[in-house]
């Protein structure tokens, strides 16, 4: 019975507690047999998550005591649970509940943006946080003037002012230039923040106390990162937000980014510690290895310990949609157990092995959406990754499990992505690609997946 149950559950974080519960039962049974009945079963339940053990880090410029776990407000829960409706409303009640739980357990950093959740995130964050005294939380938001028609000084300032209204605050604790380095790199940075004088304006706002900490988030062109750090003496960045996790440490530029910040004593705010959940849903064989080391810890906890172990990290952001995610992450950081040198090496090795699986590095951030031609880009890429991780990617028609894998791939595809939103409708207009923080060549990947699906349908697979 237990085996069957385990089998049907995917190893997603959502099921983490359930799986542990099953493991707990199994362990309890085992202890009874061996007669060591006195030892208490230390299964995890909500009540045992400590409320006062959270690890905090202090900022050098303002002395803020920030919880190591930061709440990312980008993946807020929707009212529609089915997932096939990408236009569902935010479930405010659930957001409030999650925020209440987070604050009760010591989380005090909340990170949002005018662009998140189809523009609804700031408002939802404001509603949830305004129920608390202003000194109980730090709120971070961004100047997300991506669209060229918001590049003017007036439009950008209007966006900035609107954040105060949505968040229901009269000062913002952490203000970021959003996603510097994306799109056309330096040129786009200058158009968004320099030519219109917005950066100078924000520096003035910091002086006036309306912004307490000023920083930027970085994706993409490393030249822009280097340039902004070279102007540190002038702008005095209070913090910088970078993408860091055990895959990106060696396989991307995370190591360099972190070291550059540490050199200058700038605190790093970490985004994508879990790569949009990809590091909690890794190929099963690799997950089992981590479980052998720490059978009671979730696969995700490794990723959070990795990000949190660096002393120069101020807070680690996680977009927690479900209570289970929140509870698991609080547990990991209450308090943080820094990685040992050996564990650090283990994770770097794990990263190498995951990279061999050739999954597409999509973190489901939905920056590429909405696709003007109606495709559900992240759903397509995630389905592809899922099949890759689960071994449902038949290499050729002679494969032993070819028929089963083919059925699983094709039927699953139709379930995850409505026919009209599938990869064969991608016309290659390329509007999505510049928005991708992971620099995925989205049209290329979609066309590649489409060719694979066609070959599967026609039984002409050969990789």
């Amino acid at each position, binding site marked *: 019975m237990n085996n069957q149950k385990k089998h049907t559950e995917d190893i997603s974080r959502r099921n983490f507690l359930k799986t542990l519960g099953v493991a707990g039962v199994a362990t309890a049974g085992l202890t009874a047999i061996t007669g060591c009945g006195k030892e208490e079963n230390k299964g995890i339940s909500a009540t045992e998550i400590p409320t006062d053990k959270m690890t905090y880090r202090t900022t050098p410029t303002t002395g803020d005591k920030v919880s190591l776990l930061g709440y990312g407000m980008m993946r807020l829960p929707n009212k529609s649970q089915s997932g096939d409706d990408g*236009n569902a409303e935010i479930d405010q009640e659930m957001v409030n509940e999650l925020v209440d739980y987070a604050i009760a357990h010591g989380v005090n950093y909340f990170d949002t943006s005018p662009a998140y959740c189809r523009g609804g995130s700031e408002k939802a964050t404001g509603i949830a946080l305004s129920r608390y005294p202003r000194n109980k939380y730090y709120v971070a938001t961004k100047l997300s003037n991506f669209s060229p028609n918001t590049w003017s000084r007036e439009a950008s300032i209007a966006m900035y002012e609107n954040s105060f209204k949505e968040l229901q605050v009269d000062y913002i604790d952490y203000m970021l230039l959003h996603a510097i380095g994306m799109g056309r790199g330096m040129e786009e940075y200058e158009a968004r923040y320099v030519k219109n004088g917005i950066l100078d304006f924000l520096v003035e706002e910091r002086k006036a106390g309306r912004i307490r900490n000023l920083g930027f988030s970085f994706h993409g062109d490393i030249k822009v990162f280097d340039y902004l750090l070279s102007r540190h003496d002038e702008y005095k960045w209070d913090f910088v937000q970078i993408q860091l996790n055990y895959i990106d440490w060696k396989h991307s530029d995370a190591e360099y980014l972190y070291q550059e910040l540490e050199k200058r004593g700038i605190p790093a705010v970490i985004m994508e510690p879990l790569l949009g959940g990809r590091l909690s849903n890794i190929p099963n064989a690799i997950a089992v290895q981590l479980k052998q080391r720490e059978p009671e810890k979730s696969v995700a906890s490794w990723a959070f310990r990795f990000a949190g172990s660096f002393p120069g990290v101020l807070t680690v952001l996680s977009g927690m949609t479900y209570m289970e995610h929140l509870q698991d992450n609080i547990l990991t950081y209450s308090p943080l157990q820094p990685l040992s040198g050996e564990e650090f090496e283990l994770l770097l090795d794990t990263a190498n092995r995951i990279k061999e699986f050739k999954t597409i590095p999509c973190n489901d951030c939905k920056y590429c959406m909405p696709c003007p031609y109606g495709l559900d880009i992240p759903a397509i890429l995630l389905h592809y990754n899922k099949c890759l991780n689960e071994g449902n990617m038949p290499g050729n028609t002679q494969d032993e499990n070819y028929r089963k894998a083919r059925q699983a791939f094709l039927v699953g595809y139709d379930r995850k992505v409505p026919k009209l939103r599938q990869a064969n409708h991608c016309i*290659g207009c390329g509007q999505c690609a510049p928005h991708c923080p992971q620099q995925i060549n989205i049209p290329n990947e979609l066309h590649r997946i489409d060719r694979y699906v066609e070959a599967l349908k*026609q039984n002409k697979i050969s990789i």
Partner: protein
Amino acid sequence: MLRKIRLSLAVLFFIAVTALFLDFTGTVHAWLGWTAQIQFLPALLALNVVVVVALVAITLLIGRVYCSVICPLGIFQDIVSWISGKRKKKKYRFSYSPEKKWLRYGVLALFVIAFIAGIGSIVALLAPYSSFGRIVSNLFTPLYQMGNNVLAYFAERAESYTFYETEVWIKSVPTFIIAAVTMIVLIVLAWQNGRTYCNTICPVGTILGVLSRYSLFRIVIDKEKCNSCGLCSRKCKASCINGNEHSIDYSRCVACMDCIDTCKHNAISFTRKRKNADSKLSKTSDTKATDSGRRNFLSIGVAVAATSIMKAQEKKVDGGLAVIEDKQVPQRATAIIPAGAKSAKNFAQHCTACQLCVSACPNGVLRPSTELMSLMQPEMSYERGYCRPECTRCSDVCPTGAIKPITIEEKSSIRIGHAVWIKKNCVPLTDGVECGNCARHCPAGAITMIPSKVGDDNSVKIPAINEALCIGCGACENLCPSRPFSAIYVEGHMVHSEK
């Protein structure tokens, strides 16, 4: 005993033929496809000599057993009649009625004329197997699919890939209405009088009736034993036993054997024809005209109001899905018919509009025509899908030879139509973006993207169609991003040709 054999065979045939129409996965056909091919009219149209000779021979030997055992519409009526007979005091509700010759032969004449004149819609309306196919594929298949979708719903939650969801849609409103009316009329007739349809309207019934007058084995009443109680007449769903005169109208007897067990004096038996034992039939003709309740339908033009126009709007916030407008059927000068049909003429002559191919099409391409002349005969359109290169289901299932069997290789070289470019809808020109989705998906390599401005290689690229290579599969039309009307669509060919 004879009755039990008849019943068992009938149930098996009925389940088999019905399963053919319900199955959308294409697995049943491999095992039971022959049950459609031995149907009289399809076999006749397919010039399947073996089957036709066999059916004629069987009828000459033992009468219209075809109508009782093989014809699914006949069995369907038997089922309705049987349920009706379960009511209190309705077990012996029939009575002898004379043959309505003018109606029977009138309908047969109309059928033959329509057949020769190539008016497929009238042929399809009268043919029994077509009526059955229409009823099942229009009224029962959707229910079957919905049931499947419920299973698929649970399968999805159990991470099982055994069941998958299928799309349920009304493929043609007129055909749906005709199917519904046909079924209601049949149920009413069968509920009250058993085999009225088979013995007054069905052209196949009439043809086989003529033959069965001379059948070797037949139901015979032994006048010595008969006490003229009339119970057999009241049990005869074909209303063909005249108990008073000890005579049977063999042209209407479907050899159901119900009367044999009914007779309490063992006066009825199924035996060899005895000389001079045939009684002359009373020739009184009933002048009361019975309206069959069938009507011709005018094709209903379905006007679909155009909804909002999708525009490639500029992205400001993250997430969400753009609204996708439904595609609309373009005006085609010539209807597209499946590869294997050879030509519009061949197709119209052979197709009985049984809807088997429509039920079998996994890509939402085939649907019944709404044109008056070819009403209910299948035609193709590509708003929901396109004629996929790996699929030959319609040609596999067609029992009449209207769509001849073809292989996947043959299919890729048969030109059933050609693509036509509509400049004003083409997305590179309207939205100024790169596209080429038609060229990317053309299985025949018939589309090349070329610069829209001659001599300017950097101008946006538009499709150039090589008509000689195009096979008319509709991949381009279906996957064209322009909505509701595609910028590229397929015109059918009157005569299919090899590439």
